């Protein structure tokens, strides 16, 4: 079942002297439960594509439909709400809230959703255990390693039970051990809980784990391989 459908997507950045066609007529779809890596050289348009899919950036032309909802037609407020309920984000620089503990960072989105305390506690505990941080719930990000922070970020991304998770270069700042660890966790969540993951990455280890690899260059898809 398709959860994301992208049609004729364009994104043009108009600079003072030159215009950059970051995304140039992309058509693609993502099926539920896929473990997809979007690869390509720097400046190929991977992050821009991910940002548009996640409703973080506007497309210049074309549409992104998530389970039948055209997100580029939503108002800013509805789009924020839509992101909160349907999309999980994992960022390259972890981007946890520094003043909150691991547990509170994971809980944060559930707070925004208005979940009950008992539900929040149960879900947070379950997720942090799933990413191997059950013993470090009360630590703030500054007391966690890069790999541990990124695992908290994965738990946070899953807290709202999203339809899919967008991970922008999630392993770029991690050492090999942490990368392996993180990928194993995400692969496990994908297989066991049928969570759809879409990565943008340079990292060959991520590409090796992915079951679908989309290669982009100059804003266009040049290959789309299902393993």
């Amino acid at each position, binding site marked *: 079942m398709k959860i994301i459908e992208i049609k004729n997507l364009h994104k043009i950045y108009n600079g003072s002297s030159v215009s950059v066609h970051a995304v140039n007529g992309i058509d693609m779809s993502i099926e539920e439960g896929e473990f997809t890596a979007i690869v390509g050289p720097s400046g190929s348009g991977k992050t821009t594509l991910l*940002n548009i899919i*996640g409703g*973080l*950036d506007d497309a210049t032309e074309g549409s992104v439909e998530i389970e039948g909802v055209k997100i580029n037609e939503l108002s*800013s*407020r509805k789009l*924020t*709400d839509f*992101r*909160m*309920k349907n999309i999980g*984000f994992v*960022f390259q*620089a972890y*981007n946890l*809230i*520094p*003043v*909150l503990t691991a547990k509170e960072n994971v809980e*944060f*989105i559930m*707070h*925004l*959703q208005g979940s009950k305390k008992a539900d929040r506690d149960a879900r947070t505990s379950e997720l942090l255990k799933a990413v191997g941080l059950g013993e470090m719930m009360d630590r703030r990000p500054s007391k966690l390693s890069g790999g541990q922070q990124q695992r908290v970020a994965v738990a*946070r991304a899953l807290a*709202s039970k999203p339809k899919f998770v967008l991970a922008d270069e999630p392993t770029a700042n991690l050492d090999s051990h942490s990368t392996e660890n993180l990928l194993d966790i995400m692969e496990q969540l994908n297989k066991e809980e049928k969570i759809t993951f879409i990565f943008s990455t340079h990292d060959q280890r991520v590409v090796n784990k992915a079951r679908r690899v989309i290669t982009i260059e100059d804003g266009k898809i040049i290959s789309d391989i299902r393993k």
Partner: protein
Amino acid sequence: MKTNIKLAWRNLWRNKRRTIIAISSIVFSVLLASWMRSMQEGSYDSMIDNSVKFYTGYLQVQDTAYWDERTLDNSFKVDAELQNQIKNIKDVSLVSNRLESFSLAADHMKSKPAMVMGIEPEAEDQITNLSKKMQSGEFIKSGDKEVVISGGLAKYLELEVGDTLVMISQGYHGISASGLFPIKGIIKHPNAEFNKRLVYMDIETAREFYSAYGLSTSLVVMTDDHYSVNHIKKEIEQILPEKNTVMTWTEMTPELVQIIQSDRGGGIIMLGILYLVIAFGMFSVVIMMVKERQREFGVTHAVGMQKRKLASLVFIETLFIGLIGCAVGLIFSYFFCLYFFYNPIPLTGDMAKATEIYGMEPYMFVSMKASLFYNQIIVVFLISIFIAIFPITNVSRLKITKAMRA
């Protein structure tokens, strides 16, 4: 909301040094503003106390013709019932009869025009503590035929306690008035002008001297709080007979009111400048707070926090800084000013002389009027609300992708 408050509180302390500096600047500003206003109002209170308490009183009931032509012929008979009714008005602390006139005061060699105050000694002493200002001898009591004269007059006439003061004047309806009065005490009057020419005597002795039996030139009404003068005036007006009028100290000493108003205006301009400094200090902290957290704002908005909630978070942080600064500032200011309220700073040299010439005691007094303190809090609080507009605007214009690159 609870989450926002918790987040805001923690955010405040993620950069402790910056927050402490911001709060300290507000504390210092509130302290400075309160101290400045407190000293200013304290000096006015002192001016009012000296000029008003020792001369006009806060309010005076007079014959309608007296203020324009201050002679004994425009004195009036005080109705005991009226006096009682005035006494019972809220905030009135004391009502006292006075008979004021002039006389030529002399000893065997010299003479000098003197101002004669026929007073109710015990009542007057409650208001002015004149008995504590005695240079030598004692203060008069009711029924005394003796007088108390001011230090300057005693010095000029070379008189001492126990000597006799000769007084010649014109009494009620032109009757000649003359008398010999033993000097019971010499007073150092705080008002330098009055110190040169004042004679206090019991009102009954004065009435007898001026043949103004049963008459008073004014009924002085005192209050402990000069801010309640207007309401007292209104209530007195309702019970006064037609031949009488009531005047407040501001009507009797308009020049004093003018001095206070112009000085207060200058003080308020200075205060405005101080508030500007506070505002810029707070603003710079808020700009830093907002600019260094653009990425964080981007992420929290990306994961689903509405801009409205994000703005309220930063708004709460700004309010926290303002509120903590104000609360600590209030405590510091209160105790700081309280110390100087009980220990006024003595003036020395030319400053002291100038103050004495204007009839004031040579001290820098402070006022502990509550509004002086809470007004600063209100203003600083309003400034923090005004400053909070900046982060709100910043958040409302937030572009996630741009913020996350910051």
